[in-house]
């Protein structure tokens, strides 16, 4: 329970504004092309926002090194990739996309997912995933790569351990114990232990040369790493010995003192939990006694495996404050545990091909369009009729604007004779500018959050994954994510 203080402290650290970042602006001032605004066009909305210089070039912080994932996937020495991070940042999708890509580059891969999202199973062409790895069809590539996928079933995994390590009679006693049934069905913590257990099992089977695993949607990122230790310390602890004491020490003369303490304590617990419950716990612990040792040994082994050179951790985040705070915390924790961090995957990063046009300018221009103000030197009316256009014929636009608007298009007014195209183009252009202003606002916020992370952890390699407008539904979608993962930077940035 010491994690809280740690998390709090980190949060405070991450919050300390790591700026000086966006202020020192190189800016696009050299470019007279896209930025040649007249004073009139700047308009009233232009309160100098120090971060308004757009996402690129404005940062005073050195760019983080780029995380190259293909070499990691191609390295036969990479045996385990763990994707971790806050909830909802795309860990599972990232894990699946890496699995597909690695398989298509010739690896024999198994993806172990904890996320019960049906969609993911379906995107890999499997109706549902279960506790056994299933082969994914449709993997391309000539190097004999294969992809298998499975979803952790906590209870099944727990049951299997019991069945494998206890004689049939004892196994039955455990499986029927009410305390065990609740524990194995997934109360806090069980998922983490079982994920570690499964990872160990998959590695031991040695059928795959790469295991990609995403971590459980934990209370906090810590649980996954803490699970083996916590289990170990619990199993080593005095408490469990005390619980089992009646069976073991009964009658031994030297243990009288302990017995007194013990009965006082079980008395208290009995009062608290009810006698039957305590008895269930004791029965359970006694029955598990023989296999607990093996359990701990394996948990320790898995923990060591995670520290081994064949393992690579990927911290997954989105350019949001909370997600990156969690990511920063994870980076620190992995370092403290001497676990090998490959880098940060930053999902859903927004870019813009028109980043040179700032939010303020775009907004001001949109307002000018709305108000019918003209600021160029042409002196003519904006739009088609007054301009000395050669290619786009006025009529063409009139038709285009009038016809493909089926119904109830709130932004495209019904075309009216000759004036219509003018109005429509203005309206549309104002809309395009507003959208762009909004996009640029998001970009600069994302840049600020990223800069904060980079300032704290300049050594962490980063790959940025451009935001997708929709969800992933199939292998092709996962492949596309894989491509984006490898691109490293958003197209515009």
């Amino acid at each position, binding site marked *: 329970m010491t994690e809280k203080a740690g998390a709090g402290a980190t949060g405070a650290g991450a919050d300390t504004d790591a700026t000086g970042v966006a202020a020192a602006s190189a800016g696009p001032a050299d470019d007279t092309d896209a930025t040649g605004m007249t004073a009139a*066009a700047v308009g009233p909305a232009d309160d100098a926002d120090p971060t308004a210089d757009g996402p690129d070039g404005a940062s005073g912080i050195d760019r983080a090194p780029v995380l190259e994932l293909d070499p990691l996937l191609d390295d036969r020495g990479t045996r385990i990739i763990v994707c971790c991070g806050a*909830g909802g940042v795309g860990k599972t999708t990232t894990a699946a996309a890496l699995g597909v890509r690695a398989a298509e580059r010739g690896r024999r891969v198994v993806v172990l997912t904890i996320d019960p999202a049906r969609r993911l199973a379906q995107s890999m062409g499997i109706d549902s995933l279960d506790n056994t790895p299933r082969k994914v069809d449709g993997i391309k590539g000539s190097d004999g790569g294969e992809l298998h996928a499975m979803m952790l079933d906590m209870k099944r995994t727990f049951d299997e351990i019991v069945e494998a390590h206890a004689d049939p009679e004892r196994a039955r006693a455990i499986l029927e114990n009410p305390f065990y049934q609740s524990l194995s069905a997934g109360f806090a913590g069980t998922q983490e232990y079982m994920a570690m257990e499964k990872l160990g099992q998959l590695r031991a089977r040695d059928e795959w040369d790469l295991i990609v695993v995403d971590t459980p949607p934990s209370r906090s990122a810590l649980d996954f790493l803490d699970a083996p230790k916590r289990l170990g310390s619990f199993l080593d602890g005095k408490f469990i010995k005390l619980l089992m004491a009646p069976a073991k020490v009964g009658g031994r003369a030297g243990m009288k003192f302990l017995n007194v303490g013990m009965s006082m304590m079980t008395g208290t617990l009995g009062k608290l939990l009810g006698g039957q419950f305590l008895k269930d716990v004791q029965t359970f612990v006694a029955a598990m006694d023989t296999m607990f040792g093996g359990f701990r040994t394996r948990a320790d082994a898995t923990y060591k495996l995670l520290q081994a050179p064949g393992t690579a951790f990927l911290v997954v985040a989105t350019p949001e404050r909370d997600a990156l705070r969690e990511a920063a915390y994870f980076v620190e924790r992995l370092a403290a545990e001497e676990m090998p961090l490959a880098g940060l995957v930053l999902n859903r990063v927004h870019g813009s091909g028109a980043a040179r*046009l700032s939010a303020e300018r775009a907004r001001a221009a949109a307002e000018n369009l709305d108000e019918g103000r003209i600021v160029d030197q042409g002196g003519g009316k904006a739009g088609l009729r007054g301009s000395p256009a050669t290619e786009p014929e006025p009529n063409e636009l009139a038709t285009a604007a009038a016809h493909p608007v089926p119904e109830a298009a709130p932004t495209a007014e019904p075309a009216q004779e000759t004036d219509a195209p003018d109005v429509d*183009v203005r309206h549309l252009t104002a809309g395009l500018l507003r959208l762009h202003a909004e996009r640029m606002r998001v970009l600069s916020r994302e840049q600020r959050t990223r800069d904060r992370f980079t300032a704290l952890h300049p050594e962490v390699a980063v790959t940025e994954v451009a935001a997708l407008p929709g969800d992933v539904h199939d292998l092709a979608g996962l492949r596309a994510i894989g491509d984006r993962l490898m691109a490293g930077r958003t197209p515009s940035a």
Partner: protein
Amino acid sequence: MSRLQVVSGKGGTGKTTVAAALALALATEGKRTLLVEVEGRQGIAQLFETEALPYEERKIAVAPGGGEVYALAIDAERALLDYLQMFYKLGGAGRALKKLGAIDFATTIAPGVRDVLLTGKACEAVRRREKDGRPVYDHVVMDAPPTGRITRFLNVNDEVAGLARIGPIHNQAQAVMRVLKSPETAVHLVTLLEEMPVQETADGIAELRAAELPVGRVVVNMVRPHVLDEAAVRAASGDHRDAIARTLASVGVTGGTRLVEPLLDQAAEHARRVELERAQRAVLDGVGVPSYELPFLGDGADIAGLYRLAKELRKQGVGA
């Protein structure tokens, strides 16, 4: 409005932000709300930009109109020790139990005890009264575990009451369950207009209903303004790049078609998103749960944004 407002949602949907905004919105004139956090993440402190919250109810914000928001980060271990102290006067013995690892066992390993304590503490705050009989808090808002775990989390007391068939834990579990299953409680699910969160929300509602837990609202978060719809974007593409470029130039934005191209790409992306959102809204409509809608905050969820969301919630009837 129910006294206990439980806010859940898929990770990344802004559940903590919505819970905080709801607590602010409910703190209308002279009212007092308590915002509780159960996952030990200090999300509330980060949101309100204060130092980490101790295990203690403290005032964290004042709502417009004079209401007050208190916050509490519930710590299961401390809650258990409090509980032992309260019922058994176990000051020293509690420490001894801790040394033995019994508290660790109870709060992390023993099935459900942790969740019993967390929900129990929240229900205690709901029931607590001043000397004059008025409730101490008009509303308690819980930033609860995510959708995938919420039913199990709230229902844990049923299970524990079954495991510990007698004794104070059994009684406490049953008392908590009575509050949670009554109209005193409303469980809200926060979602985005995206496929996965919407699906999870629909599944979550079905699970809550099956467990007879009171479903409150769906909170559709981060709703973006629809600047252009698909028809408009279709009209804009095609051969009108030059016309748009000229219109841009007329307000001083030069750059020609090189600038128009990416602007149109962004518009196409936006239109696709509008389309997807429309489809997801239809799915949500099919669930048959009333909803609140909250706008996307371009600058992120900072304190100013929080107050804006609270205002928005009041406009939609919260605290009325």
